[in-house]
């Protein structure tokens, strides 16, 4: 089981002081959070991708590579990668680069993006969002698994004799999760490929989340990747902790009441009852998150949002420390104890390389391309003509 934190890198004024961090401060605070996450024993650090203020994370691989250079074990991931408005060729290249430079510590969460104008800014049409996600991802997989790709489709210019470089590390592409809150088509997409499905349920009631996960699990089994309970599931989470639960409630309330998304809406009490947000002691957070598997089955990844709503960096770092030292060790022990032996471990590069070797034999780096020609990428038969 993997535990991690994710940030959407929003610049939000601190409602208690009115202070607004600069873009530079916000970016550097994210880097510090990623490094601390590794130090306190978390497994995953993920960042969002946005192309509009108040967000500062337009180029995730830049930030992830920078964090990757200063860490050694933590998996670097996304929350999410925009599969609709990014060119799948550039995603294939960027994340293969990151994979090499970080020794395989990379996976991705694909998302469509819900900011309307981003689509036209990048030359796409939001009404075709699902179709673009399906088409772009199918091409992305081919770019990672096939050395030479000929491709033609609706949403980018055709490719003839194209080789995406560098080739994935050890011949194994980064693991992909598909994130969607409400679209059954995306759960179906994740299931079809045998990829992971991450339901970032931080703003959603479990009654909805469990059905999306169930759909994904049923379809995962339908496509023959394993039994439904063996599919790869991730969840979002959100917590604010202090040793004394009333302190947590008092301190977090102004941030809750003014937060983007739910500020001005339901009371914190209603929202914590309806969504995974837990405000209280570390013991209360443990108690709450031990129940998630009762709804969605044994799962592989639990992510937490810790740094939003204008919380100051000092507080965020304290929260990450509490999560890593007080909460996660207990969750990890309890959740792994209840997990049946035939439920797969969370995917890592090492596990995926071992699985590929067991299936196809050891990867031979010296002879990569199906063409036997590592320079041009041309097929042998094409080169003769």
């Amino acid at each position: 089981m993997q535990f991690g934190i994710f940030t959407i890198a929003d610049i939000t004024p601190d409602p208690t002081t009115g202070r607004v961090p600069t873009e530079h401060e916000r970016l550097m605070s994210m880097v510090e959070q990623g490094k601390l996450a590794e130090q306190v024993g978390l497994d995953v650090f993920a960042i969002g991708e946005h192309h509009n203020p108040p967000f500062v994370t337009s180029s995730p691989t830049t930030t992830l590579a920078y964090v990757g250079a200063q860490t050694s074990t933590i998996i670097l991931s996304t929350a999410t990668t925009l599969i609709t408005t990014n060119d799948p060729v550039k995603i294939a290249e960027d994340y293969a680069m990151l994979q090499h430079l970080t020794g395989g510590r990379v996976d991705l969460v694909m998302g469509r993006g819900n900011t309307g104008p981003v689509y036209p800014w990048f030359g796409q049409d939001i009404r075709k969002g699902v179709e673009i996600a399906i088409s772009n991802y199918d091409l992305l997989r081919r770019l990672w698994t096939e050395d030479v790709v000929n491709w033609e489709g609706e949403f980018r210019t055709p490719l003839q004799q194209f080789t995406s470089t560098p080739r994935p590390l050890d011949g194994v592409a980064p693991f992909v999760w598909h994130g969607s809150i409400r679209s059954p088509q995306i759960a179906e997409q994740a299931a079809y490929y045998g990829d992971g499905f991450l339901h970032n349920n931080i703003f959603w009631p479990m009654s909805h989340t469990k059905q999306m996960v169930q759909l994904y699990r049923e379809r995962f089994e339908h496509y023959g990747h394993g039994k439904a309970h063996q599919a790869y599931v991730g969840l979002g989470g959100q917590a604010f902790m202090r040793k004394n639960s009333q302190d947590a409630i008092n301190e977090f309330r102004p941030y809750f009441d003014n937060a983007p998304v739910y500020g001005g809406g339901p009371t914190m009490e209603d929202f914590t009852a309806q969504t995974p947000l837990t405000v209280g002691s570390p013991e209360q957070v443990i108690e709450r998150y031990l129940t998630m598997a009762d709804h969605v089955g044994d799962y592989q990844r639990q992510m937490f949002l810790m740094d939003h709503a204008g919380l100051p960096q000092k507080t965020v770092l304290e929260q990450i420390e509490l999560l890593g030292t007080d909460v996660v060790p207990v969750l990890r022990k309890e959740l792994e104890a209840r997990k049946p032996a035939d439920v797969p471990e969370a995917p890592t590069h090492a596990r995926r390389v071992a699985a590929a070797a067991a299936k196809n034999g050891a990867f031979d780096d010296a002879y990569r391309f199906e063409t036997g020609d590592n320079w041009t990428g041309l097929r042998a038969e094409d080169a003769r003509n």
Partner: protein
Amino acid sequence: MTRTFRLVALTAGLSTPSSTRMLTDQLTRESAAALSRDGSQVEVTTVELREYAHDITDALLTRFPSEKLAMVIEQVRAADAIIAVTPVFNVGPSGLFKTFFDAVDMELWKNKPVLLGATAGTARHSLAIDYAIRPMFSYLKSEVVSTAVFAASSDFGADTEGQADGQPLTVRVRRAAAELATLLQAGLGDAAADADGAAATAGAEPAPARGARSTLDAEFADFVPMDRLLGRD
């Protein structure tokens, strides 16, 4: 075989008691009477939207309904017809009425028979139903009953307009209720259910593996199997 018609009345008056609620009760009573004339059973549920005002706002902001509001949504989904009644404020429906429709899934209303009612202080607002309320239901693809009923304060008394009938409001309510009954008895409520089923099988056919054993809500069947989408089946 006697059948049961489920009517859900949504009433958006703000005061208690409210004249909007009085009109709603007249519409539900006459609709139930018209529908039960052939021996059918009628179940009426009346929802005072005022009691859900906070839940409706929260749903608009968080994009998911509270448990309390979700129960109303399920009642609407299961209803054979909706009776929707609002006061006229500033030449349109009340904000509470409009916000409820903004906060819930628009698919709920597709092909659903709807009887409209509105109230205001004077008859000068009577066309608000047709220029400001009916268009939304056209957009939502509901089957709106031709006669909508407007009631001004004076309509709750005797005939003040010199019409031949002593109680013109009652006559309009009966006419609207009869039209709703005709629609439902012609099977329009069934058609709504059928159309939903057809959409699920034509546009987004549930895969063979998911059959009766799947316990998922209908919205989770809204996908096209990937092998078909990619032309690889």
